[in-house]
């Protein structure tokens, strides 16, 4: 019964995600497109939750649905003609080319990747990750991946300083 439920949940989430993403490119109203992007993000968060990655699911909601989407909407609201833009431009063939390249790269990597199923009884370091994901992620970030973590921190600091210097009162 549980498997049937998971199957049903996965397919409904997948349909919501893909339809939402399709709506983003099809709708002409930029505000609605941004909201459909949120629908797609929420679908992805649901799929994360379905594979026991609750932490990722919530961060997906927090960062993408709560943060990125709101910024996108702000940008969309400030541009003129929110309701009727998204018309064709001269860059369209180029955009189609880039999207096709990206799509083929993604499909290629998904097909080529060696997906291995986890064993039913997990070995010790992995089992701890599934019980307490945030703690495991925190330990990995401050131990094995300290350098990339610090680089990301410096990058964010540079972005904050840049933003401050842009809005400084003169």
């Amino acid at each position, binding site marked *: 019964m549980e498997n049937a439920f998971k199957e049903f949940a996965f397919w409904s989430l997948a349909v919501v995600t893909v339809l939402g993403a399709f709506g983003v490119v099809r709708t002409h109203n930029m505000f*609605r497109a941004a909201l459909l992007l949120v629908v797609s993000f929420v679908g992805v968060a649901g799929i994360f939750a379905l594979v026991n990655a*609750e932490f990722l699911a*919530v*961060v997906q*909601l927090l960062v993408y*649905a*709560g943060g990125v989407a*709101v910024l996108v909407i702000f940008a969309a*609201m400030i541009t003129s003609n929110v309701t009727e833009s998204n018309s064709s431009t001269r860059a369209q063939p180029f955009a189609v080319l880039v999207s096709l390249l990206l799509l083929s790269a993604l499909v290629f990597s998904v097909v080529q990747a060696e997906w291995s199923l986890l064993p039913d009884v997990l070995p010790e370091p992995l089992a701890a990750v599934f019980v307490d994901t945030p703690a495991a992620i925190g330990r990995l970030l401050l131990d094995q991946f300290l350098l990339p973590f610090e680089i990301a921190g410096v990058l964010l600091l540079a972005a904050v300083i840049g933003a401050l210097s842009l809005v400084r009162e003169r």
Partner: protein
Amino acid sequence: MSPLKDNSIFSWTYESVANTLGGPEWLAYGLGAMAVIMVVVNGFLLIGTIFTWMERKVVSRFQSRVGPNRVGPFGILQAIADAVKLLFQEDIVPRRADRLLFNAAPIVMLAPSLLALAVIPFGSGSYVADINIAVLYVVGMSGIASLAVLMAGYSSGNKLALLGSMRAVAMLLSYEIPLVMALLGITILAGSMSMVDIIEAQSVPFLLVSPLGALIFLIAMSAELNRPPFDVTEAESELVGGYLTEYSGMKFGVFYLAEFSNVVLAGALFAILFLDGWEWAVLPSHLWFLIKVFGFLFVASWVRATLPRMRIDHILAFAWKYLFPLSLVNVVALAMETIAWPDPSPVQLWMMIAINWGIAFTAIPLMSLVTNLGTPARAGQRVVQTEEVN
């Protein structure tokens, strides 16, 4: 992980459907889960409704008025009368509105706060789910409310509604940072993000251990809830009704209900994170939880009755220049104390409390000296400058 099976409402429904009626297992499971959800959601909304009456009553006492007193004893049925009135009001949609988004916005506003209920423990052992990221989950859900505000503001097709929603979202995003930092302090203290673990980690309520965190949480929360002194979105003198301007009838009612239920949710969070949740002596746990929540609600009404509204630029400056550095101080102090005393004995705990109160009483006035927000002198300089430009 799943206390649903231990829940008496769930098991009663499950067994009566599975055994007495002889239904299939999935039906029994679904109906049992539905029964639990019904009780939790309706109980929560009922408390939200009672709070609408309570706040009107409390605020009117603060203003030497009587408040609602006609419908039912002490006017307690006023909320129901209001709901009936709203139901019978004409449903007006402006001609320039984006009809779909206009109708969806109230739902998007109310749904996240109901979803957040899943991780709130209402008493010892009575919660729907105990996940190890509960605190983060609640924050994630409250972030979706800002989308609803934008939807309402944009789809109304009204300048003032749009302006109101832009202001509201700027404020919501700014105050989310100190709020999350205050919650981070609690997570460091408890060593977990699960609500149940946090309550069990409080041998002394965290209100005493982390007074600065509690203060930051209270201030940031009242901004997140659009309550005075942060209710610029509904600043009647400037923006008519903000993003609610074009709403009427039951759609307005849903917004109103969502607003008040969110305050109840905030009260439940405060009770769990800072007041030791359901735990205390003598009385049953659910009752203690309710008493703590209503204590928070009374303080919230008190603040509403007492403080005047702040200006939008002051609000944003206050978040970034005052509350954010203060929350950093709080997190660093708590992290250092936790490293020094990973498993504090009672004596160490009381030392921690003393240090934290010391930090709070020095950091708060020091920060106000350094940041110099909206003091009369500075406001005066501003006026002189603008006159020179003119």
